[in-house]
């Protein structure tokens, strides 16, 4: 088994890994039922999905021709900018007040943080006000 065959198998495995993570992350984007929950899924597409595809491209260029590491630049750029854009989208969700109250619990019940007793109401509102 020469290095070329191992490289071709590595290209196939990296392609399957990256495409699988892209598919799973986008299924999560489509199926989850809350804005902040939906923000969690596509981060996998931006990191492992694209990382696997670019790694397959690098190994393919080393197997079939002169190798090049140019794709590492795209990988570095995406890995640096993905958390910044996720932070901005989370800020938009907070600004639009789409995550003020948590979703309803499964049975006839309320979350314990929403059921503040009468005596503690003022204390709770004091705690909720942001500092400054």
């Amino acid at each position, binding site marked *: 088994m020469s290095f070329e065959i191992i490289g071709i198998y590595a290209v196939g495995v990296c392609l399957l890994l990256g495409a699988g993570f892209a598919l799973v992350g*986008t299924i999560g984007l489509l199926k989850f039922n809350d804005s902040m929950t939906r923000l969690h899924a596509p981060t996998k597409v931006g990191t492992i999905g694209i990382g696997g595809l670019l790694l397959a491209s690098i190994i393919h260029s080393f197997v079939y021709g002169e190798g090049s590491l140019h794709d590492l630049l*795209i990988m570095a750029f995406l890995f640096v900018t993905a958390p910044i854009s996720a932070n901005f989208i989370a800020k938009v969700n907070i600004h639009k007040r789409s995550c003020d109250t948590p979703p309803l619990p499964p049975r006839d019940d309320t979350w314990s943080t929403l059921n503040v007793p009468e005596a503690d109401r003022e204390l709770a509102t004091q705690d909720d006000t942001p500092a400054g």
Partner: protein
Amino acid sequence: MTAATDFMNIAFIIAFVAVAFAQVMSMIRLVIGPSVGDRILALDTMVVNAIGLIVLLGIAQGTRIYFEVTLIIAMLGFVSTVAYARFVLRGDIIE
């Protein structure tokens, strides 16, 4: 050699189908997304999936000429996401 090449070709086909299907699903979320944040997130995911499709096309054709295309689309996707989120947050992009 033929077994390895066959495995890689099948992996190519599976990867193309999976990433194209992911692109279509994020487009569905872009259409039905209830709030603005979901639509911005769907656009960001669509840019990332488009980068994946272009990388797959470059591997399939065996050329390196799609490198600059991918890099510029990555930069424009990040800048457009930040500009749109900032427009929703502040009502203005450049203050």
